[in-house]
């Protein structure tokens, strides 16, 4: 066999019904790069129309890409693709996890794992390089993610990576996660593994990813990125406080390192982040002090260090040691980032009481909640789990729909008293599907239907439900108006796209952002100053397309879209310009084949269009405009006293958003009336077989 560069060259197919494990060449998926691209292709080709998420016929694909494990910065992301149970049509969705799993899979020699069928007993998949076996999981079935990980790691060795589900996944809770490394979670697909009785996948690899580039080519690229391009988490390129080296600063920046700020509980005594200036490659890992950013100043003294994924210099996961957690029956160690910490605070919607000192309640709720949710493997639907609890409770609906015994057994008093002990009871009910309340774990669409949540739920600006399909806003209208809105309409779950928000949040003045956008889409009018939006134009449609396809590209290569692309840089000497061709430079060096920014963008456009085709197939309609791409009313009705396109509001205009959809469909080459991909576009992208299948299902636009 020819030596494969970048790609491992083969993928694993695991049929749980037959207990059969085979390998296949990756080459047939090359046009889809890897990761997300392989996932969509497999699901489109192999999962019949009408299949539901927990059906035996559904498949789940764990896929990585040609840059995973190559040593390119921020490249250990695993893309998981399967039908998405919390979506009303169970339409396809992706979940993503960082950690070490992705790199280990490559080192073991695989680009993807396709899981199909259903086991009749609990099993786990053990991948030890070429030795791949299904093992009995009866000893860990019923256990949390922490115990499972510890037990399986004791079998496989410390250098392995274990991706597992908790009790929530086993019980097929729609909102459940798959997690590796105890805190790197992929939300929404845990129940699929539960339905297949696959408790975990352990992987250990000790081969290398072959690099085609000669001599120091790869190292040179790494050094270039580290010195000239990379910022802090979310590619924020200015510090959060004024600092001597920086021309600009921005309070919202995740470049939080500064004099006097420490990892207070570091082994051997506090370590000061200090000023970690642009270009200082040895201090990149100190730039993002996410513990205090996420949890407030109380977290400083508990921070052991910042952790993160294999091959990432950014370290966005704060790892804390909070001895008091033991009093709640939990380990004192907790690690997480972003939503993992925020979602328990949403559950504690009455607020948080102080625990050890003034103002530390938020941190305690976050740490206790993250610890519980991550062990049970409960997902939050990007925060809606707490929102749904709040609505059911405050509207009085729970009093009506929950049996009285159950209602009275819930420690509402703890919630009212702002005591984080409430979380212990709450997450257990969800994970074990205890009683009626546990339907919160079904996801927003299903609970709203079950409990008859009305317009006061769907159209509530404070709740932020984005779509009637049951997912919330996630960098939506507040992120460059129609552009963020379009991005948020295109997927079957919350948009997990950071390409645009990273530019908008980079901390650079609007003139520089406009210049950068003009270089991307041909006009500075693609972007407006924050909260001062103008009516739709074609450049905004182009920018939305650019942002989405870069996201699809990263989830296929796989690179972390919290960092990539390098749209801007922290250096004045570069006029703050990043390098949008950097992915192609890495691809060329790693694979030895000639890639350009354009060729990769085209592949990503293919992947995104395949997602659209798959959505059409899953929903059995071409009418994407009305059935899929709609927004809830609050987006248009918020700030009742002012009109859309007035400074200070991100309220959108109904007619203008329809224009936006039309312009976007046009940019994508989709049918302008329905928003479904046309045969001509599918064929242009090499997806003729997809067009044929859609034609057979009568799902091509007229």
């Amino acid at each position, binding site marked *: 066999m020819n030596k494969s560069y970048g790609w491992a060259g083969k993928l694993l197919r695991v049929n749980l019904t037959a207990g059969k494990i085979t390998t296949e060449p990756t080459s047939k998926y090359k046009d889809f790069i890897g990761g997300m691209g392989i996932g969509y292709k497999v699901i489109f080709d192999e999962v019949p129309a009408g299949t539901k998420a927990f059906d035996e016929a559904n498949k789940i694909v764990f896929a990585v890409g040609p840059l995973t494990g190559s040593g390119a910065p921020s490249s250990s992301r695993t893309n998981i693709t399967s039908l998405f149970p919390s979506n009303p049509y169970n339409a396809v969705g992706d979940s993503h996890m960082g950690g070490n799993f992705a790199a280990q899979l490559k080192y073991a020699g695989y680009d993807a794992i396709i899981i199909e069928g259903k086991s009749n007993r609990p099993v786990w998949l053990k991948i030890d390089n070429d030795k791949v076996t299904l093992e009995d999981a009866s000893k860990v079935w019923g256990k949390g993610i922490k115990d499972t990980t510890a037990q399986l790691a004791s079998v496989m060795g410390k250098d392995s990576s274990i991706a597992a589900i908790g009790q929530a996944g086993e019980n097929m809770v729609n909102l459940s996660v798959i997690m590796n490394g105890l805190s790197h979670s992929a939300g929404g697909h845990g129940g699929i593994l539960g339905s297949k009785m696959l408790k975990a996948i352990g992987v250990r690899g000790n081969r290398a990813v072959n690099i085609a580039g000669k001599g120091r080519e790869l190292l040179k690229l790494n050094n270039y990125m580290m010195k000239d391009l990379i910022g802090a988490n979310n590619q924020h390129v200015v510090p959060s*406080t*004024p*600092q*001597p*080296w*920086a*021309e*600009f600063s*921005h*309070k*919202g920046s995740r470049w939080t390192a500064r*004099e006097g700020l420490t990892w207070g509980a570091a082994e051997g005594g506090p370590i000061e982040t200090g000023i970690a200036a642009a270009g200082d490659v040895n201090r990149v890992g100190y730039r993002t002090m996410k513990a205090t950013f*996420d949890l407030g100043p109380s977290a400083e003294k508990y921070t052991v260090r910042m952790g993160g994924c294999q091959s990432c210099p950014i370290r966005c996961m704060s790892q804390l040691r909070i001895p008091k957690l033991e009093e709640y029956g939990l380990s004192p160690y907790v690690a997480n980032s*972003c*939503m993992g910490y*925020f979602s328990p605070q949403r559950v504690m919607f009455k607020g948080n009481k102080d625990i050890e000192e003034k103002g530390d309640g938020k941190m305690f709720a976050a740490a206790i909640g993250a610890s519980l949710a991550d062990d049970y493997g409960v997902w939050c639907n990007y*925060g809606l789990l707490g929102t749904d609890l709040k609505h059911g409770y405050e509207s009085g609906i729970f009093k009506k729909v929950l049996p009285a015994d159950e209602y009275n057994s819930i420690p509402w008093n703890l919630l009212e008293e702002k005591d984080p002990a409430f979380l212990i009871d709450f997450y257990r009910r969800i994970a074990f599907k205890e009683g009626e309340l546990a339907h919160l774990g079904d996801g927003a669409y299903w609970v709203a239907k079950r409990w008859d949540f009305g317009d006061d739920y769907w159209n509530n600006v404070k709740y*932020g439900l984005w779509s009637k399909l049951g997912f919330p*806003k*996630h*960098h939506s209208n*507040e992120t460059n108006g129609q552009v963020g809105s379009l991005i948020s309409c295109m997927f079957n779950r919350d948009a997990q796209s950071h390409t645009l928000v990273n530019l908008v*949040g980079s901390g650079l*003045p*609007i*003139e520089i952002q406009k210049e950068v956008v003009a270089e991307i889409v041909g006009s500075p009018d693609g972007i407006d*100053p*924050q*909260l*001062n939006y103008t009516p739709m134009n074609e450049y905004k449609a182009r920018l939305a397309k650019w942002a989405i396809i870069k996201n699809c590209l990263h989830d296929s290569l796989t690179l972390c879209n919290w960092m990539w692309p390098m749209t801007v840089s922290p250096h*004045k000497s570069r006029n703050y310009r990043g390098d949008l061709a950097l992915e192609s430079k890495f691809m060329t060096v790693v694979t030895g084949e000639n890639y350009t920014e354009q060729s990769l963008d085209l592949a990503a456009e293919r992947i995104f269009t395949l997602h659209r085709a798959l959505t059409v197939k899953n929903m059995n309609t071409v009418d994407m405009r009305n059935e899929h791409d709609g927004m809830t009313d609050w987006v248009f009705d918020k700030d009742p006293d*002012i009109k859309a396109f*007035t*400074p*200070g*509001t*991100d309220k959108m205009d109904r007619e203008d958003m329809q224009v936006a959809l039309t312009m976007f469909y046009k940019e994508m080459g989709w049918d302008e009336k329905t928003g479904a991909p046309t045969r001509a576009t599918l064929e242009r992208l090499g997806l003729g077989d997809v067009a044929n299948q859609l034609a057979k299902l009568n799902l091509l636009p007229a």
Partner: protein
Amino acid sequence: MKRILEHIKNSSKVGELVSKSELLKGSLEIEAPEIEKLLAEILSSEESSDIKELIGMTDSFYYSTDYMSDAYAEVIFKLKDENIEKTISDYVRKESKIYPRPTALEVFKLNPFKKNDQELEEISKRIEASDEFKDIQKVLASNGAVYLYSDIHMTKGHARGLCEWVEVGQFENP
């Protein structure tokens, strides 16, 4: 010359300007006439083109752009050369204009301003009372954080929306 250059660069690294008066007083043990000559040479030489001069009312200041940004140098220069109300107001105006965004009052507790709560309260009052700064307005986020903006560059509604986003909204959309 090397000693002066190093002194300027090291000071820039830690966020300080070097003043001519300090050099003339002999802080580097170089005679005053020699200082004037060396400074002139530094400023005209290609090799030290990173060294810049800011000329104030009573003194001149030097920094290296390799280690200190022009924006930071401008602020600390103003802190030495102007009154604090003007420095803060100009800072707010600039932010309202270029980003555009309102400025958290809290920023003025940090380097290079380093004012405490009481000082800030007094400064705010003096800004409010003076006609020279009548474009500087206050706006509050829902968590109580105080922001300033210049109404020459931004409306109140815009400023309120932006400070609400930075203080509250962004954490609900991480």
